[in-house]
């Protein structure tokens, strides 16, 4: 891309209210905007800046802020700059607007985020489960779901007791319970 393109892109993006732009490197542009302004930004990028490719929508669960961060990664085949638009959505009730009408691929990502995080997208064509059809627990990607604990509660492990271990146990040794218990106490 050339600097003229970059300039015009910057000018164009200033049309969005409250946008904050950060150039992370030559090909990565981070845009922080409010959730309300996102559809306008996407429409602008898609309609006037050649950003036809929605690379991904990522969701991050910031549980301490009680917010979900949604990141829309957009790519233009013309400017060769990837714009990541960051917005924050309240974790509760966890509803946001679908951008399916602007970008078709959004349907998959929104469906995925819905089943993994429980964030509902209004206007998305299909919010039914895709991967977790047999799962009735909480949305697993939420930070408050402890996967390891769930596994420990629901599964058992092999109880190995091979001959060599029996021999060692006869001699008074055996499996060290935890790394710290092996240490001497003062």
């Amino acid at each position: 891309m050339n600097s003229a393109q970059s300039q015009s892109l910057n000018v164009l993006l200033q049309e969005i209210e409250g946008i904050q732009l950060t150039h992370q490197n030559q090909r990565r542009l981070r845009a922080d905007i409010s959730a309300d302004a996102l559809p306008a930004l996407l429409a602008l990028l898609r309609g006037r800046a050649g950003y036809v490719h929605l690379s991904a929508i990522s969701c991050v669960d910031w549980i301490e802020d009680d917010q979900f961060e949604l990141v829309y990664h957009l790519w233009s085949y013309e400017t060769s700059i990837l714009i990541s638009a960051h917005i924050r959505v309240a974790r509760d009730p966890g509803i946001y607007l679908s951008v399916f009408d602007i970008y078709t691929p959004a349907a998959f990502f929104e469906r995925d985020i819905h089943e993994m995080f429980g964030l509902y997208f209004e206007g998305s064509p299909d919010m039914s489960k895709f991967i977790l059809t047999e799962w009735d627990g909480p949305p697993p990607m939420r930070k408050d779901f402890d996967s390891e604990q769930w596994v420990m509660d629901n599964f058992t492990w092999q109880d190995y007791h091979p001959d060599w271990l029996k021999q060692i146990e006869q001699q008074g040794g055996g499996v060290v319970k935890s790394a710290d218990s092996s240490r001497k106490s003062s």
Partner: protein
Amino acid sequence: MSSPKTIGNKAPVLDYKSAGSLLNPLKNLQFLGRKAITEPLQPRLASLNYRGFHLNDWEACVGCASCQKICDNAAITMVEIPGLKNDPVKGIRNHRPAIDYGRCCWCALCVDICPSASLSLSREYVHTCDQEHIDSYFILPDPNGMHKKHFGQGWQKTEHSDLLSLTRSAMAELEPANRDTNFNEIVHGFTPEQAVVEASRCIQCGMCHDSCPTHMHAPEYIRAIWNGDVEEAVRQIYRTNPFAHVCGRVCTRRCETACSVGIRGEPIAIRWLKRYAMDQVSHDRIKQIVKEDGKPKASGHKVAIIGAGPAGLTAAFDLIRSGHKVDVFEALPHAGGMTRYGIPDYRLPFDTLQQDIDVITSLGVKIHYNCRIGTDKTMAQLQKKYDAVVLAIGLSKGRQTRIPNSEHRHVYRAVDLLQKISSGEEFELPQSAVVIGGGNVAMDIARSLARLQKQQFGEVKITVTALEQQQHFMADPDEIKEALEEGIIIRDSCGPQGCEIDKSGKLIGLKTWKVVSIFDEEHRFSPRYDETEETIHAGDSVIEAIGQFADTTLLGEQLTEKLEWNRGRIKIDPNGRTSEPWLWSAGDCVSGPDVVHAVADGHRVAASIQQQLTIKTNKS
């Protein structure tokens, strides 16, 4: 929507659009006559760095469990194997990793992290079993391979794949030119950035904890420093060591000898990290942290401690926190014992030592200075007045070589001189000196005198002679390096044979013979010399730094008679109790010269006294 451009050229390949004869596939009938590429049923030999089943060299493995920590899948369990070498001081545990092949993914991260490089993978890869033999999925890797057949070495650690950081984080210190005329502290200590980098090298194996005489919680405070929480680090340090400033500077650091990272690289700078944590937290905050447990209930018991050195004060620190009243009697005007009067200022500044003592006295420990037991008070008085008495008198007298002419007035004992230097007493500074001994005390006196000589005469004329070869000196390698930098001459393998005196009765040097061997076949001390290689080391004074002994005259004749003795030392049980039920003994006078041992002794004695006093309380 703007239409994207079509860019780039097409690759020049076959024109597929026109091709496509029905006969094309028939061309491949030529393959009918070719040799088959099928491999024989016998499994192939895997590649030279294949990640197959595990091998573990039991001789090299130290059982540090870092493989367990890095394992993605919690596949590794440590198994304690009795009969294997278990030496906490050397940093060797009798634990060996056992691997669950129902978890393992053969990523070889365990191999790449292994500090001892004992773990590796073989080229073996076939293992099958049925349900009844599922136990065979849990294996204890040894050098012989999983099925007791060696298929050759596969993935091994190389310099590229090694995941440990083997070099220390650099720390600033005074250049020789800036330090040889003053007693300023040489090392500057870590900056916060350096400390975090150094702390991040730790693999949390806990060998340091095991090897430490007082079992300091080094992994915990290193982790706390790494987390940027120095106050937590101080809390962890004070769990076992009230002489934290001192041990942060002059500890013999057995932890670093045992450190697993040190097997192939430089051990973690545990001592400097401790010092960093202590220096970062303000003195008042440290006092608060120490008092966090709250004030103990007064027990009504009284304990007397003779000697305000590390052992005595550690015992005092423990006992006062158990609610006993503690009186410490110190013959000299300052507390600290050998750390105050034996260690020069450039290694341990007096004010940092004073901070440690201040923390202890702030708890309510009363120190009676200039109170020499035996003259100012007698043991009998103490026995009457106190429920328990601790003897922590240290090793205050220097040993003598008793070589010819060693009674000359210019032949000194190192401890006496050091005490004079640190208490600022006037003494006759020798123009040139010969030191006998290769330990830390020898280095201390040599380097202290070197500084004074440089100050007064502008040049250093000191020779250190020792029986050992230089690489076997008892002194810290750093000390030797720094001594050489400061202009001190070191002559190793020199057995002192006598002081040379000229006609006027002036001391002119030390005569030594070359040492052939120090110990005899039964490892007893019995040096043999090569008399033909005689050297005279010039010097107008000779300083003996060959060890110290305890001054037990304070006990008085009666008590000396009553006590049981063991080869010149007071006989004690494992808890430090003497044959007299009211008397305990701790510190250098029972376990030899070492600060951290003294601290450990102090704790042990305090625990024993506490136990004894509890019994007493319960009885009454």
